């Protein structure tokens, strides 16, 4: 099946042949194989893994949705970075910063907390995808 990833910066992945896509669904990881039924699913923050004939590719994805229709998978995401585009040191620094800031946030729910928690999750995903555990 064919995969497209569109972001506000333009097409990130265009018409790439894939055997399987793993996506960060809202309720957890979600795999899409050829022959999937027509579906629209919201996506959270997490890694996207493509199994292409040439091998495996990993991306850090944040907020969006996926539409599966026939043998075409279209992903729309606010951000999408390929593993080799990620600056690991910066992502790690961001994780540390967010963790520090999270400690100072009271109450432990509410918008400020959620925003920060999302930011942390994004940074963690980037570190993980870049392979710099």
């Amino acid at each position, binding site marked *: 099946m064919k995969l497209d990833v569109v972001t506000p910066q333009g097409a990130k992945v265009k018409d790439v042949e894939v055997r399987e896509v793993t996506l960060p669904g809202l309720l957890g990881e979600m795999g899409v194989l050829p022959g999937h039924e*027509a579906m629209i699913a919201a996506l959270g923050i997490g890694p996207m893994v493509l199994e292409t004939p040439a091998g495996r590719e990993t991306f850090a994805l944040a907020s969006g949705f996926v539409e599966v229709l026939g043998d075409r998978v279209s992903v729309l995401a606010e951000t999408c970075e390929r593993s080799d585009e990620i600056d690991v040191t910066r992502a790690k620094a961001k994780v540390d910063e967010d963790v520090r800031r999270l400690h100072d946030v009271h109450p432990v729910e509410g918008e400020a907390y959620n925003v920060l928690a999302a930011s942390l999750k994004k940074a963690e995903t980037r570190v993980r995808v870049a392979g710099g555990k």
Partner: protein
Amino acid sequence: MATLKQIRRRLASVKSTQKITRAMKLVAAAKLRRAQENMMRARPYARRIRDVIRDVAEHVDREAHPMLQVRPEKKALLVVITSDRGLCGAFNSNINRRAERYLKGGEGGHEEVGLALLGRKGRDYFRRRPQYTVRKEYMEVLSDPTSERAAAIGREVVAEFIDGGLDAVYLVYNEFKSAISQRVTVERLLPIVRDRDGDGDTDAADAAQAADGIEFAYEPGRGQVLEAMLPLYVNVRVYFAVLESLAAEMAARMTAMESATKNAGEMISRLTLQYNKARQATITKEMLEIVTGAEALKG
């Protein structure tokens, strides 16, 4: 009558000004092209999100989603996008005056209107008018217009809207119509209401898609998909407004610099004429003096 030297100095100064305006025009043209490319890249994403929201929203209870709720608009926020730099004609003053008119005229019938400013020119304008409340300033967005920065603004206003701290959010910015025309628009960002039906091409695309009549499965469910999508829609609208405003700014600067270059050109030819006349007059005068001197000697 100006002396030769004065005219020459004036001429040199106008010429160097013209060099600058011409260079600025070229720079603006190059930047305009880049800004337009950015817009073009963001467009498919924005459209797709809007289409899906439209599809999904049709089948859910609108009241269930806080971002769709229309309340009496008591507390409103005006997000005003200007530019960081001047020399772009009436670009900034059009926006600032429009925003001020909105505030002064009580246009939306709000009890309380705050301002969120993007761009230094807007900030400077409203600093001189302390009678209006500036709630937020986002000065870093225009110099580095990433979708992340725009999304951060979107998240902030959405959070405040859901909290009930705001009942409505409006965008005031220069819409990019074409390279020679910009239009100041006031657009509602929140709550999300079914927007102006019939803006041409997209509706045709919608119709084509709807005709397929495919039943999608929604994961985790229609409601959640909509809930996840609405903030993204707000974010991309902010981002797109920033991109449009940047393109419009470059277009306005290009036009302004074009006419400045033309005016400088006219001034140069007028001054050159004046200079030549003055020079000729001096020569004639000197010749006369020589001739009369020679005549006198002869006598």
